[in-house]
């Protein structure tokens, strides 16, 4: 009885998992198929797959008989089985090659913006949180509330005036239009989380360090930071996740399209033509998912923490 119940659980969960994954599986499948193929049979497997597997045997035997291939556009290819096989592999990844050409500058911009913003948020955020947490000086409490207070202002309130401000500062169509507001906005959370963590560090540690003659910055660098590695990775991941996915802000601040990041770039690619090449488009979606996928695989635990802590979702209510 218990066993069959568990099988039923797996069936239900498996079905929901399949439903969740269906769009992505189709994107993956159709990223290897030309528009014509997709038009004729939406649910089919890539033709290339069949053609290439048929050539595996001859290619391994190193068949020298020439094979002639004619593609949709009428171009022809002629070569040995091995060359034909490689030709098909090349054809299969044609969408990826084209997509990479288009998304590469956007990916680069995303990396520049996200990494520099994250680095500054970590540096300034942890430093400020450390000072506010371990040192008492007039106004320290007020500064803390000054920092976390704006979390209550939703992005919908500040989008237009932020745009006007960045425009007035002459920062439109530059990295600074994204990096500076991201640093400012990201720090609120970073400081909120860091201060909570630093407050919990035992005072004895600092007492001992002071007796050993450590300077204030030494304590920050050699005690606080090493102890905070787990929370640093959570803050880092939340920050990168939020900025990487931010579409609206890069989209409105890059009117000339020179500094689009991956999120706004994907939209530009998808909307730039009425008849998009779907394999290229789908390949671009998948390529754009790789960096976060790698981050997810490399740092699964802090990633899950970052997502569930609730803080990350609070981020939605500010720029």
């Amino acid at each position: 009885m218990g066993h069959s119940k568990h099988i039923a659980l797996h069936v239900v969960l498996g079905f929901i998992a399949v439903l969740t994954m269906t769009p992505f599986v189709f994107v993956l499948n159709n990223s290897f198929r030309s528009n014509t193929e997709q038009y004729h049979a939406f649910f089919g497997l890539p033709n290339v797959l069949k053609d290439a597997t048929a050539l595996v045997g001859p290619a391994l035997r190193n068949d020298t008989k020439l094979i002639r291939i004619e593609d949709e556009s009428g171009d022809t290819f002629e070569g040995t089985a091995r060359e034909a096989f490689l030709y098909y592999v090349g054809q299969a990844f044609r969408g990826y090659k084209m997509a990479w050409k288009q998304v590469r500058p956007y990916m680069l911009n995303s990396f520049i913006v996200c990494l520099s913003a994250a680095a500054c948020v970590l540096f300034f955020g942890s430093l400020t949180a450390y000072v506010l947490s371990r040192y008492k000086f007039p106004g320290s409490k007020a500064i803390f509330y000054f920092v976390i207070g704006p979390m209550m202002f939703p992005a919908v309130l500040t989008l237009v005036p932020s745009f006007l401000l960045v425009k007035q500062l002459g920062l439109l169509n530059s990295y600074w239009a994204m990096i500076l507001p991201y640093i400012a906005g990201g720090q609120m959370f970073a400081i909120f989380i860091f201060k909570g963590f630093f407050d919990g560090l035992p005072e004895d540690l600092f007492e001992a360090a002071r007796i050993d003659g450590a300077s204030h910055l030494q304590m920050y660098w050699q005690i606080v930071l090493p102890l905070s590695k787990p929370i640093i990775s959570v803050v880092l991941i939340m920050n990168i996740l939020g900025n990487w996915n931010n579409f609206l802000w890069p989209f409105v601040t890059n009117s000339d399209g020179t500094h689009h990041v991956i999120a706004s770039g994907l939209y530009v690619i998808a909307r730039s033509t009425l008849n998009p090449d779907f394999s290229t488009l789908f390949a671009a979606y998948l390529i754009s998912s790789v960096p976060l996928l790698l981050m997810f695989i490399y740092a699964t635990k802090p990633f899950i923490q970052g997502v569930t802590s609730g803080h990350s979702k609070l981020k939605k209510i500010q720029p």
Partner: protein
Amino acid sequence: MNRLGHRTRYMLNCYVLVATTVVLLSLFVYTPVIWAFTKSMYEFEVGGASRFVGFRHYKEFLTRDLVTWPALAHMFFLTCFAVCVRLSIPLVVAKLIHSLPSERSRYIYRIIFLIPIVVPGVAIQLIWGSMIYSETGFINQFLSAIGLPGLARGWLSNPHTALLAIAFIGFPFVGGFEVLIYYAGLSGIPESVNEAALLEGCVGIRKFFRIDIPMVMSQLKLVLILTIIGGLQGYENILILTRGGPGFKTTVPGLWMYLNAFSFQRMGYACSIGVCLFILIFGLTFLNFKYFRSAEELKEN
């Protein structure tokens, strides 16, 4: 150096270290917040000159603008829909995962349902728009494959289905953080409570409603508030997919603000819409902070 000088220098160091943060926040966070209120009182003319109009924009938005009330209705529909699905389906899935006997398979399912998070939100919207809802997309192909080609339509371009199609993006609504939040809540239920329930013969569906749901109430409240706030100010997906069309069938206030600002160049009017939405969201953000803390406290205990 005397004692006071030392103290002053110490304080000065503290202020210098936090200065960058304070300056950046003042410029890029506080200035826009203040401007949102002040600029909403001005009419911006093309060419840069602006003219003070007082509360006229607010009056226009609330009484004269024909888009306002339909947009609010769409927003409430989408928000209610999101609340219904985000509070139910992920909770059931989390419960199912939590009922699995082996730690390994529970972990694997949690990972599976989290993976869609790595795909950029824009890509998700575009995938739904181009691959699932379009004329030659998944749903229509599926309908003709099962012999119902008559039901096929452009789901996002048809005025009767556009709003519902927007609401259904992300079906079955489990690829995200909610499952994990509920799962954490279910894992946090003390073993003594589970044992007592078992002794009393409270198992299965009854336990789910009598024990599990009350015990994850703070997580439910957290997701409720976040979903409402997200629903009131979310319009990215609509901007990407329909830009409010067909007609104004999928326009929501946030999108109307965006269009006024960046398509019609009515920055002042857009600011006033933003302020109105802010006032609506403000109370909810307040609640959010309250419940957000209670969820955190529960985790610590």
